[in-house]
């Protein structure tokens, strides 16, 4: 269940969030999830498993790359790192997102004023 303080991820934004989380440094899937919760202040939830098809898709698009390593708990884990193409995409998406947000704010603000 989602509490009022938590928000569902907007469709199409999970990839952007993952790219952002991985851009801070190589991380395994669980680590990416923790980092997402951390950077959003726990405001965004998703079913944990849903992270993986997104990770695999980004890897297939060569925006991420992966290699097997050892986790902090001494377990074998798959670590994802952002590629050059991934960074380019991240910047593009971020700019697009910024434009969208400011447009939305403008639109919502104008509506309030009209009332």
């Amino acid at each position, binding site marked *: 269940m989602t509490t009022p303080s938590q928000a569902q991820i907007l469709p199409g934004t999970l990839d952007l969030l993952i790219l952002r989380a991985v851009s801070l440094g190589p991380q*395994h*899937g*669980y680590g990416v*999830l923790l980092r997402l919760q951390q950077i959003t202040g726990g405001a965004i939830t998703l*079913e*944990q*498993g*849903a992270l*993986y*098809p997104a990770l*695999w*898709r980004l890897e*297939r698009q060569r925006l991420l790359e992966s290699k*097997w390593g050892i*986790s902090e*708990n001494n*377990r*074998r*884990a*798959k670590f994802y790192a952002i590629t050059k193409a991934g960074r380019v995409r991240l910047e593009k998406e971020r700019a697009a997102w910024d434009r969208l947000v400011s447009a939305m704010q403008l639109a919502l603000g104008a509506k309030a004023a009209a009332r």
Partner: protein
Amino acid sequence: MNIGPAIFAWLKRLTGREQFESDMQDELQFHIAARADELAQGGLPPAVALRQARVEFGAQERYKEEGRELSPYRHLDNLRADLRYAGRGLRRDPGFTILAVLIVAAMLTANTVLFAFLDAFFLRRLPIAGAERHFELTVLNQQGRSERQWPLADVETLISSRGGVLEMAYAFSARRVIIGGREPKRSYVEVVSANYFQLVRPPLAAGRTPARGATGAPAPEILLSYTGYKRLLGSATNPVGHTLIVDGVSLTVAGVLREGAGGLEPVTPDFWMLAGTADANASASPPRYSIGGILREGISSEQAAAALAPAVLDLYKNGSPDERYRAAIELRPTYLRERRELQPLALGLLLLFGLVTLIASANLTSLHLARATARRRDLTIRVALGASRARLAGHLVAESMLIAGIAAFAAWGLSVASLQALHGLVFRMVSDAGMSMQPIHADARIFVAVLLLAGLLGVGCGLGPALHSTRGALEGALRRDGLWLAGRVSAGRLRGALVVLQVALSLPLLVCAGILVRSAANANQADTGFDLDRIVDLRADPPADRLLARLRALPGVASVSTAASTPLTGPLPHYPSRVAGSAGRLGFNRVDERFFETLGMAVRQGRGFHAEEAWQHAPVAVISEATARQLFPTASATGQTIEFEVGREGEYQPYLIVGVVPDVMSGFFFQGRDTTSVYTPGNLERENQKEVLVRLDRGTGEDLDQLRHACADVGVFCEPMTLRKVLGQQRIPFLVGSQVASSLGLLALVLACLGLHGLARFAVVQRTREFGVRMALGASPGHILRNVLGESLRRSGVGLAVGLPLSLTLSLLLATQVPFLESFHAITYLAVPLILLACALLASLLPAIRAAAIDPVSAIRED
């Protein structure tokens, strides 16, 4: 062990698919374990923490499935799923599966056999280096008359003049010889120059190839083929070093070929010997040789012919000055490439097999269509569950591929068996004569071709119906009588068109088969004008007067005669003639005074020959009735004079006609009785009068044995054969042709029946609702039965109407290629359509009964 999963396991290992799966599993397990660790650190008991972590993670299988969709292996997965689905579907409908596999397997078998046959003789290169430059020499005169054989000395002259255009040239001749011993045998051998073996390099099982002796003369040696070894020296474990008496000359076996190996001809002889080895005693007058060889690289056949021209002109310098001779080089890189007379046969076969393929494809398409239509509901449900059209089409194509695959393996087994049978059949025909055929086998190449053809057929015949039915399914239409080709052709019309096509294609095939079978049967009743069972062609080698005397003394022998040409062994030679100033060409035979008596030809007018006329080779002649009618339509023939060009060109000798005898058949049975025949008297002393004919009182096997023994008594080799047997030998090629044609015809009939049955099934499935409504409105089951059968008959009728002109064209075409064929045979043209109609009726009977048993309520509710 189940082979399907095993293959997939192997494919998985091969493609790294297993690694992909285990990595995915490890990654998800790491996530759950890490989360469980964290929850346990927060105070939860480990088991509870693990359960909680799993719940938070969500449906692992669903995410894995999404992962697989992203993987490079998803096509393999889809294929596996499609094939599994198809396999289950086929198991559920064994009737359809068996029908479809049978159709494809039959078609593939027919094509494989044809392809193997064409490959063996027309496509496969000769087993020599530079096969594409292998040639044979022909000399042509202005009139287009060709010569391919010359005496050995001339051949050697021609070969030595080859200049820089030929890499090598060899002398070659095929000959029948007599192998002496307690039981003399005739043998078919090839006589070649020594360099032939350097070109062919035959694979040897033992010994070596014959060589020239120290003096340069050919060593008295032979090289046995494997079949020759088995036939002539089968009892010896190692035949090398054994001797054979060949035409009276003692020859030593130098080597033996491996099984299946042969020379450059489609027929392998008993053995090879060197030119000049046993020529002196050869039964035929001076042996003649042809010239083969390899052109130098970069030399065209025209260049080579031009380079050989001077030598050829030199060879013919004594010929008529009016004639201009020229050399022609014919390339022959395969066993039978340049034999033009065989090409119509090959083309005809290709045409017939093409027809079978077309019929099979039409059948398969209709079967698939029937099945896809029957399953439209199932497909619609799958669409509703989210399957894409491509995925659905994939399922259906996978089904046809699976059928094609099973059929390909079945066809492979069938082809190998049929090729063995075919080879056995042909082999039996030629092995008595001391020959063996080049092996015809289906190899890996042909199997790949079969698989490809099966695949093409699978996709080709599966795709149309798949697209058709998935289109209907996507539209969500549960209407039975859906539209095809974007609404332009209704399914009913399509069905009708398929039936028409089916019948229209089967008809010509069956008619041609019928005509061939009929014509082969005709040979049995050929009107020869002879008593076939009592007249014996002695085939004596060499014939001699002492033999004739010995034969005449035998009890049971009514008459003995000699002739230049024996009946039924080929058309009489035609020579230029003049009658009352007008020139022509007439059939010519030289016979002794007992010929007409021996053959039972009653003299119709005048008289036969006297003994002294035969001794003196008197200038008198007896002509046949047909010749008399042709030359002297109004007057009596006896007492007239006829002139023949004998010996040198332009030199005519007059013959006085003394009698007229009935027409008989000298040549091939399909040519009928001779149109012209002139007999002149002669005896064994004549160079060309070496055939011996015997008339028996009765015609029994013992009489033939008695003749054989009488020959042996006087040291002559004989192969007595009744004229019926001689006629039988003429029929062999036609029998083989009619056997192939009747098997193809039978195949076409079975295919047509199966296809019509499939279409009738399809029709009933499509019209279930219609029948339900009709029955609800009061139609009786009998009415429905008649309706279904009537539709099938009507459409078959249209098919017959389309097929009839096709059949006529094809049979006329066939008749132009094969001389004796009847192009129109009323019974065949009557029987075949009736058989096809009966077949259509029978094929639609079961579906019609099923239609009549439809429960109207459930049929309507189904919609």
